């Protein structure tokens, strides 16, 4: 897993996005333990305070659980993960749909473009 950062957004937000992606894609399965903040910071080559901030936010959102004595793990609540995953999908789709409207496509055209693409990409 390589970490990539763009220059236009805060690094901690990009860390949150990338860690979420690792949770959703199963690189960090539900219930699995996370490496220490320091190790994660080193791997991503970022400041440990920044990594700490990202992990705290993920904890607030309920995706990560902190155990008082033994570090952090991914939540075992698969429903929670699914919800967060759906939320991400909705966000991306709404951006996409806004762009399509901007281009002047109507509902029917958008649907047909999508179904053609799905056909082609065999999803």
């Amino acid at each position, binding site marked *: 897993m390589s970490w990539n950062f763009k*220059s*236009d*957004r*805060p*690094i901690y937000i990009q860390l949150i996005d990338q860690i979420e992606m690792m949770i959703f894609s199963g690189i960090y399965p539900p219930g699995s333990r996370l490496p220490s903040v*320091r190790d994660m910071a*080193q791997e991503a*080559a970022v400041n440990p*305070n*920044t990594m700490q901030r990202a992990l705290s936010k993920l904890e607030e959102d309920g995706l990560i659980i902190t155990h008082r004595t033994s570090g952090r793990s991914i939540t075992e609540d698969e429903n929670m993960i699914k919800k967060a995953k759906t939320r991400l999908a909705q966000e991306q789709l709404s951006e996409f749909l806004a762009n399509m409207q901007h281009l002047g496509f109507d509902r029917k055209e958008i649907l047909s473009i999508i179904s053609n693409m799905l056909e082609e990409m065999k999803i």
Partner: protein
Amino acid sequence: MSIILECNSLTKAFGKKRALSDISLNIEKGKIIGLLGPNGSGKTTFIKLLNGLLTPTSGEIRVSGIQPGIETKKIISYLPEKTYLNDWMRVHQIIELFCDFYEDFKPEKAYDMLKRLNINSNDRLKTMSKGTKEKVQLILVMSREAELYLLDEPIGGVDPAARDYILETIINNYSANSSIIISTHLISDIEKVLDHVIFIKDGQLVLTSSVDEIREENGKSVDGLFKEVFKC
């Protein structure tokens, strides 16, 4: 939150020339701070004032609550812009020298890093390239368990691969109790590891802000903002 560095209207003049004027700032413990500014903006003067190599013309500085002097040298690990080590010495001799000088120097840490960078501790400094010398000096400085590390242009002469290793070393070696001030103009390389940046220009404080705030408020990287603020 405790403060590692405090400056009140700090001013330094060399004759008629003001190298730094009226700098006031506080820095919390446990942060990595970038001291950024174009050539001749006063970065090195600022760092030399912090470690007591220069004395302020007016204003005051406190490092961990005390004025720069013998006591602060125990807690500050300083990487100068120029080498001060004797170049006839072998690396292991310099390590012994550092063991004598600094209570908080950890030789095992130094040997470990030398090994990672493939530097032979039997080599004499004068046989080394500029970049390798810089690596040795940085290793020595980071092998102390200091409260404040002052790094004046630490990555200027080293290749990009070693640069990554050095940044990794910096991340690894610092703890919640220590703080690091890095002066550089190679911003894009180090931006990811910084908590906070201080911009200075013509000896004056232009901006102090956290890296995340800069990105949030300006929608651009510190490097991008720097180029805008210091546009020639």
